[in-house]
């Protein structure tokens, strides 16, 4: 945003006395843009997720408000806004009131470093990834606060579960990101994207076997950190009623859900930026893209498509898989994901060093990994075909109900 501010200053010839005002204004506008984007995304995803769930469960899902029920998210938001804000007796009312905003802020703050295009980014920090890992700790604080302040045993159990889970899973998230930082040599998200190519085999996910595995480790751990199924223990509705947000109602309750759906985009966006080439367009050099506004827009769309595909996968997982138990969750983190990501770091170091002396090996490994993932995608397609073919009832296969 500093670049844009300086361009505006130059364009209008504003003297340096007022430059602070302009910079603050630009950042304010960008903040509003990020908030609007995140809120719209959370709202529309809430509708989209319920529609997908409906299709998967042979039912219709919300389809009354607007075309195919598209405005359902707005209706739900309004409903929650008008509901009574109940604060139960004997709660720690201050903590109870502010806890949702901690969660909300924790997720929204990551939008500072999440890029949309080569120049449209809140702040291209040189420690961007560290910032993301650090700021999401606010979410843990908020959830623990909500669980404790509600003064209920179920919410306390939910809060403590989530604290244990989220803090544990931050380790594999950070370690799997390090795997990419080694070949990239930087922590800045924009620089990491810049170093990848537009074509799929130039992405960091195919850089070497280490990063390939690291992508899946990151994706799994990010799901767990974001409390999504199969790791949604903090709000396991069949065990803990509703977990840490049992006692909440109205707008405060909505803020938790807001944060959860915004977090979907954050998971998808970080994975896109770090592993999947971000906003790079195949065949177009970085300098050309950064100079043209149209190409930046195309890059934004490409970024969005990649992120939304990952969000889609998360939604599929949520409506397919059961939930793990708390000890199985911890075993998976400490016994499998952390040692595995450490091994991947070593692999990544090994390959990065080898590529310096054997550049042709780099291309070969990339193409092999790319073909491997195509085979996996092909198998997925075959399973979808298989399931459709052998299911007796074809009425649920219509595009829209």
């Amino acid at each position, binding site marked *: 945003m500093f670049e844009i501010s300086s361009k505006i200053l130059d364009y209008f010839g504003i003297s340096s006395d007022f430059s602070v005002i302009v910079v603050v204004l630009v950042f304010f506008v960008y903040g509003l843009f990020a908030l609007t984007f995140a809120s719209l995304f959370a709202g529309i995803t809430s509708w989209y997720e319920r529609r997908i769930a409906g299709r998967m469960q042979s039912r219709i899902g919300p389809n009354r408000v607007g075309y195919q029920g598209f405005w359902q998210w707005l209706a739900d938001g309004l409903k929650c806004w008008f509901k009574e804000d109940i604060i139960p007796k004997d709660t720690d009312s201050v903590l109870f009131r502010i806890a949702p905003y901690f969660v909300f802020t924790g997720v929204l703050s990551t939008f500072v470093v999440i890029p949309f295009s080569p120049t449209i980014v809140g702040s291209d920090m040189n420690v961007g990834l560290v910032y993301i890992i650090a700021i999401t700790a606010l979410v843990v604080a908020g959830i623990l606060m909500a669980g404790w302040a509600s003064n209920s045993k179920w919410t306390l159990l939910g809060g403590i579960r989530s604290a244990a889970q989220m803090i544990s899973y931050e380790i594999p998230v950070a370690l799997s990101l390090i795997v990419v930082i080694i070949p990239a040599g930087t922590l800045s998200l924009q620089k990491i994207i810049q170093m990848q190519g537009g074509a799929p085999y130039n992405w960091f996910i195919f850089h070497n076997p280490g990063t390939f595995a690291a992508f899946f480790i990151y994706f799994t751990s990010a799901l767990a950190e974001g409390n999504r199924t199969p790791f949604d223990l903090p709000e396991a509705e069949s*065990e803990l009623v509703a977990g840490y947000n049992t006692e909440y109602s109205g707008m405060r309750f909505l803020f938790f859900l807001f944060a959860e759906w915004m977090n979907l985009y954050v998971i998808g966006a970080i994975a896109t930026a770090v592993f999947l080439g971000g906003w790079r367009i195949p065949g177009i050099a970085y300098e050309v893209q950064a100079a043209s506004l149209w190409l930046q827009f195309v890059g934004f769309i490409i970024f969005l498509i990649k992120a939304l595909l990952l969000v889609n996968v998360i939604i599929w997982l949520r*409506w397919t898989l059961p939930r*793990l*138990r708390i000890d199985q969750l911890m075993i998976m983190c400490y016994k499998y994901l952390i040692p595995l990501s450490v091994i991947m770091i070593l692999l990544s170091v090994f390959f990065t060093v080898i590529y310096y002396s054997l550049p042709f090996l780099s291309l070969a490994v990339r193409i092999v990994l790319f073909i491997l993932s195509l085979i996996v995608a092909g198998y997925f397609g075959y399973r979808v075909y298989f399931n459709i073919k*052998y299911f007796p009832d074809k009425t649920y296969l219509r595009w829209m109900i």
Partner: protein
Amino acid sequence: MTLEERLNLVKRENEILLNMGPQHPSTHGVIRFIVRADGEIMVEALPVVGYLHRGIEKLAEQTPYTGFIPYTDRVDYLAAMFANHAYVMGVEKLLGIEVPKRAEYLRVIACELNRIASHLIALGSMAMDIGAFTPFLHGIRERELINDITEMLCGARLTYNYMRVGGVSKDIDDRIIKKINDFLDRFLPGFIDEFNRLITNNEILVKRCVNIATVSADEAINFGLVGPNLRASGVKWDLRKNMPYSVYPELKFEVPVGEGFRGEVGDSYDRFVVRVKEMEESARILKQAVSQLPEGEILAKVPKRIKPPKGEVYSAVESARGELGYYIISDGTENPYRVKIRTGSFSAMKAIHIKSQGCFIADLVVLIASMDIVAPEIDR
């Protein structure tokens, strides 16, 4: 005196007393568990029953014999046909009535449809308690077709009141038979396979259920477990085979027992798989029963006023939740002197109490679901 004192609950240090229920998403109705937990690990879960007690057994004493049939539907709303069947069988035994063959076949068809519907709910809600929502709704979808069939058969979708003393209330026609055949065609290879792919063989579900709350064969007999819960422990006991009633001897079917499909014999996963296999067997029974259906009367000659002679009788059927017994004492008047209902869910409560000791809170949910508890059946 508080309830905790009355129940002699001694709370130790580091323990929390959690009140699970009467309203809780996974107690499957209005049951209460007092959970003593040390963090996530439970010391014990004490069931407190009685929140749904409606005095159905007492109602029988003021109701004529035929008038009590609708009440039996309310004992177990998910498997009401079996309650009908057990009760009218008892009254028929008292009266010494021979039921026409066609009526017996219709009873078997209705009961086996009901067994599939009940198991679909049991399996679906167990999957839902473990966190998978989709299998439950797939189960509900198939059950909807069964509900349609029973609606055509007897006009009701849940509390059927289908059976009469001496037969059944309505005859079956070709339309219904076609509908049953359509359902079976879709159910037996198609749905069961999809269900197994979706949830039964899901590795997370297996991990959650295997070796959880293992009930050995001896323990199961001592707890008084019946039905799928008993068979999952490896005891081959099915009233349809061991104490044959109705026309079950004429039908060919297997009795699936727990074999320790992934872990020990009698764990929660065995109880899950045994129910899936029982649905398959029920579908096979239905196929035979529909094809062998004889012609004839559907109601025997029964006196207008039912006044059984003095005496007592115990009649039991293999319900979806195991042995469902009606003990009826007649004193020669129009009302029964006493009716005692023996249900499977009630004896499962003790098993839950003992088996919950030392497992996780998340496992308690699995245990309750795997025992297939239906709250009104516990309290009557």
